[in-house]
């Protein structure tokens, strides 16, 4: 089977300028993640758009447009939508998928002392090796008296 390769996009290094094409890709991903969160909450809550518009004191067509696609929302708009839909607030964390490393706050808490340490380049996000080591951390964490972030 022919597949495109998961290469060509990497973390910035040194003082090298990041292309606007790369920034365009990353920005679009970020917008989409926000959109996913909002729509998921919307579906779970069952709230109708008219009520959501009233809660936000916005015209229904404005809310309809906001929810039609992953637009370039201001941070406040994202926050307002989430809270108005279900009282939710966003949980923010940083990931480093391109450097083949997971850096989430919970990961710090679930990595027991005995877990093997590997260099960033030793495994790739989403690969079996990486998944295996994360699973191992989680398993050890469950067995150990270390709190795991929700």
């Amino acid at each position: 089977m022919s597949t495109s390769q998961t290469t060509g996009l990497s973390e910035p290094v040194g003082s090298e300028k990041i292309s606007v094409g790369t920034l365009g890709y990353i920005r679009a991903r970020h917008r989409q993640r926000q959109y996913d969160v909002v729509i998921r909450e919307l579906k779970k809550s069952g709230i109708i758009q008219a009520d959501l518009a009233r809660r936000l004191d916005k015209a229904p067509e404005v809310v309809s447009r906001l929810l039609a696609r992953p637009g370039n929302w201001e941070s406040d708009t994202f926050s307002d939508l989430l809270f108005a839909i279900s009282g939710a607030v966003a949980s923010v964390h940083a990931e480093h998928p391109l450097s083949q490393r997971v850096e989430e706050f919970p990961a710090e808490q679930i990595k027991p002392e005995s877990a093997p340490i590997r260099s960033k380049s030793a495994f790739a996000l989403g690969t079996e090796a990486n998944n295996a080591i994360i699973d191992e951390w989680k398993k050890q964490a469950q067995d150990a008296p270390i709190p795991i972030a929700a």
Partner: protein
Amino acid sequence: MRLLRRHRLFELESLFTGNDTARTMIVSPDILAVVTPPFSDTEHGRRLGEFRAWLDNFLEGGEVSVAEDPQQKPPDAMLARVTPVEDEFWSVRVTEPEDTAGIRSLGGFGAKDKFICLIWDFREGIPVFDDEVDAARDAWRDLFGSRGPMSGESLDEYLTNYRAV
């Protein structure tokens, strides 16, 4: 799939999650060429980066806003049916960056959550949209013969995690 082996179509991987994806996206060589990084430091590159992000979002199972009625689609729908509806072709609608006309890419579903994207262009490069649909139909016929795209009774039969708009 024999077409994949002959390199006439390619199964796309997510730039972030590789082949660990919730959906499948098959693309033509033309599309693969323009959505493969690096993306240039130009307006062109920015728009193609947006295009790739749309495709990766589909692959990773992200929400997709879908318009079923070609005559009454909101301008912001991410995926929309095109006329004639019975031919089962859909338009991938990349509507960002907002200061551009965006990108359109046409194709059809091969199965649920499996989309086959055959042609693409910047929206301003498509003066007559019906011609683009004709081109997609020709490309499909060239690849699959008389077997048309998947046809379903409802959106649930086409994809998961969508929002009808």
